[in-house]
């Protein structure tokens, strides 16, 4: 079975490498600042003892005050996994960096989040609606959509 890494230990390792980029961490997940998300993710992908070469899923949650993006990473080589999170506080102009350059699987999932929650991904090659049509008003998975 895939081993879920102790997120606190990974966070301690990341903190030495990227000081000030971790918002908080517990046993299950690491919350990072969105500005340093891309650098952190590419480190997680390439570091020899981590090598998260597979992005299993991205999803986003609306917590009223902020959006939280959840990245589920897996290493097929070491057979371990990690949950990475980031937050964006600005509802009207929610922006996070795209991870398509690291994992191609992020492409459609980021488009889905853009479509349903209205979060923009900078650096995405083809950011447009995927389930709904161009011209649709609003983002249905936002809590204030009715």
């Amino acid at each position, binding site marked *: 079975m895939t081993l879920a890494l102790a997120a606190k230990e990974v966070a301690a390792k990341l903190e030495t490498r990227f000081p000030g980029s971790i918002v908080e961490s517990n046993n299950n997940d690491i919350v990072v600042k969105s500005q340093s998300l891309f650098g952190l993710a590419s480190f997680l992908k390439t570091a020899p003892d981590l090598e998260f070469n597979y992005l299993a899923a991205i999803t986003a949650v609306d917590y009223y005050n902020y959006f939280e993006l959840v990245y589920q990473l897996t290493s097929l080589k070491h057979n371990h996994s990690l949950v990475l999170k980031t937050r964006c506080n600005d509802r009207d102009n929610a922006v996070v960096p795209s991870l398509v350059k690291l994992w191609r699987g992020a492409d459609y999932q980021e488009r889905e989040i853009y479509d349903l929650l209205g979060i923009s991904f900078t650096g995405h090659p*083809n950011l*447009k609606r995927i*389930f*709904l*049509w*161009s*011209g*649709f008003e609003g983002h*249905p998975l936002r809590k204030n959509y009715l």
Partner: protein
Amino acid sequence: MEIDITHKFIYPDAELDKAEGEAIETLKANCQQTIPDADSWLDEEIQRNVMLTSLDSVINWARSSSLWPVICFPACCAFELIAMQASRFDISRFGMEILRASPRQADLMITAGTLTWKMAPQVKRIYEQMAEPKWVIAMGACGISGGIFRSSYNVVPGYNHIVPVDVYVPGCPPRPEALLYGIKMLQDKIAKGSLVTKG
């Protein structure tokens, strides 16, 4: 000749997306009312007394016993439909074992599943591509009224907003027996039709 990858297609993506969005909005605006059910045959008993001929009965027998469904199954009711088509329930007993991939060769549309507005133009196009005479069975709660997704932002509240429906089969999903019963009712309807009056 070198292909310029920015002009891979005749129309740029943004233009195609805009056209698709406009087509869906137009369809949605035009489909707010339901299309009346094709049920005029129900009170046609008296009118038909004069026109009933042996030709009618031969043609109706041929039509009702060789219904070919078109492959257009947008969601989960399709599994009950597949069960009905396969050997245990076996619709080939009624002369309709061939599911046609081309709407040109089909005369029955079984709407198995929830329909989204994004998919609606394609379903309408499939229906329009089918040759006359053609019939529609609305299968399952979503096919009849949108089901539990009726108030959703992206679900068509019943196929009768898009295409005229002949038979409604309720259930979520309907059992294969229920669908077979619906098909038998459609065959009864076809048997009562007339070449002269369409109903």
